[in-house]
């Protein structure tokens, strides 16, 4: 039976690693001055992060892309309100998270899709790609079962590398609540990850 370790750890790509704050400010200023290419650079810079955050909320990748797009365009409309003394990433992620939450509220509440029986019951595991996608499916399902705020907190912290304080600003909750949400989400997800590794042996 082939065994495949989870993807190798990568450094988080939070606000501090997404590009310098000065570069973001410069791009924002140029966008406000009417330079369309500057906005394009901002979109490319934050696209992956925005799509992941939206997907953490919505689950469905197409819905997530729609929400991320809404978030970017909404940010563009509000760009003049952006306080350049603060980092751009958390400001943008708050808008994207709100767009995703709004979209989720508008659509019918979708129950977590049941796992494919082949994934649950130890069926054949043909290759590494399938095994990896199996873990991805399990994690997405586990995420979808967490309260929305909890899954956003853990994704923003462990995937995107934002600090507790920044996440508190994004989600508009106290910093202590962010810590608690991350803790509970991790407990659930780490258990799942550990079980998966055990089965993969």
């Amino acid at each position, binding site marked *: 039976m082939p065994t495949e370790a989870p993807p*190798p750890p*990568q450094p*988080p790509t939070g606000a501090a690693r997404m590009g310098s704050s000065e570069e973001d400010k410069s791009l924002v200023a140029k966008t406000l001055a009417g330079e369309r290419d500057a906005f*394009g650079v901002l*979109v490319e810079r934050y696209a992956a992060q925005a799509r992941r955050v939206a997907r953490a909320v919505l689950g469905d990748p197409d819905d997530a892309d729609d929400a991320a*797009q809404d978030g*970017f365009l909404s940010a563009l409309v509000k760009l003049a309100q952006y306080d350049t003394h603060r980092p751009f990433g958390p400001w943008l992620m708050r808008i994207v998270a709100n767009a995703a939450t709004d979209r989720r509220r508008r659509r019918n509440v979708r129950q977590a899709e049941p796992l494919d029986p082949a994934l649950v019951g130890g069926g054949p595991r043909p290759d590494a790609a399938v095994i990896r996608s199996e873990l991805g499916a399990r994690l*997405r399902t586990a995420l979808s079962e967490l309260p929305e705020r909890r899954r956003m907190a*853990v994704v923003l912290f462990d*995937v995107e590398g934002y600090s507790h304080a920044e996440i508190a600003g994004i989600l508009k909750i106290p910093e202590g609540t962010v810590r608690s949400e991350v803790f509970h989400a991790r407990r659930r997800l780490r258990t799942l990850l550990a079980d998966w590794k055990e089965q993969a042996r």
Partner: protein
Amino acid sequence: MKDSQAFDHRPDPELGAALRAALDPKDDQQAFAARVMAQYERALDRATVPTVDVLASWFRPGIAAAAAALIAGFLFGRTVLAPAPASIDAAMALVDGPGLAALVTASDPPDASIVFSSLVDQR
């Protein structure tokens, strides 16, 4: 992976990488960025209105405001410029008949018949 009970203040790289792989879109970011920019261009086109349209939108409110100002000016001018009576005698002279003069100059309280006849005379 770290102890699941630990309250860790640092990101968990292993969990983060697994979640990232689970949430990352399968396509590249270029297609998504192009889609956002296309939407941005469409929004800009919608927001760009020809100057003549802007002027046209000002036309009707402008006409209405000018008309209102004209009417207000006319009413104000008529009120201010209307000639006032120069004295009480001149005012009395406007009314024919003895009724009103008798009412104003009498030392005793006026009789009701004088008052009424005065009013009737004015009509």
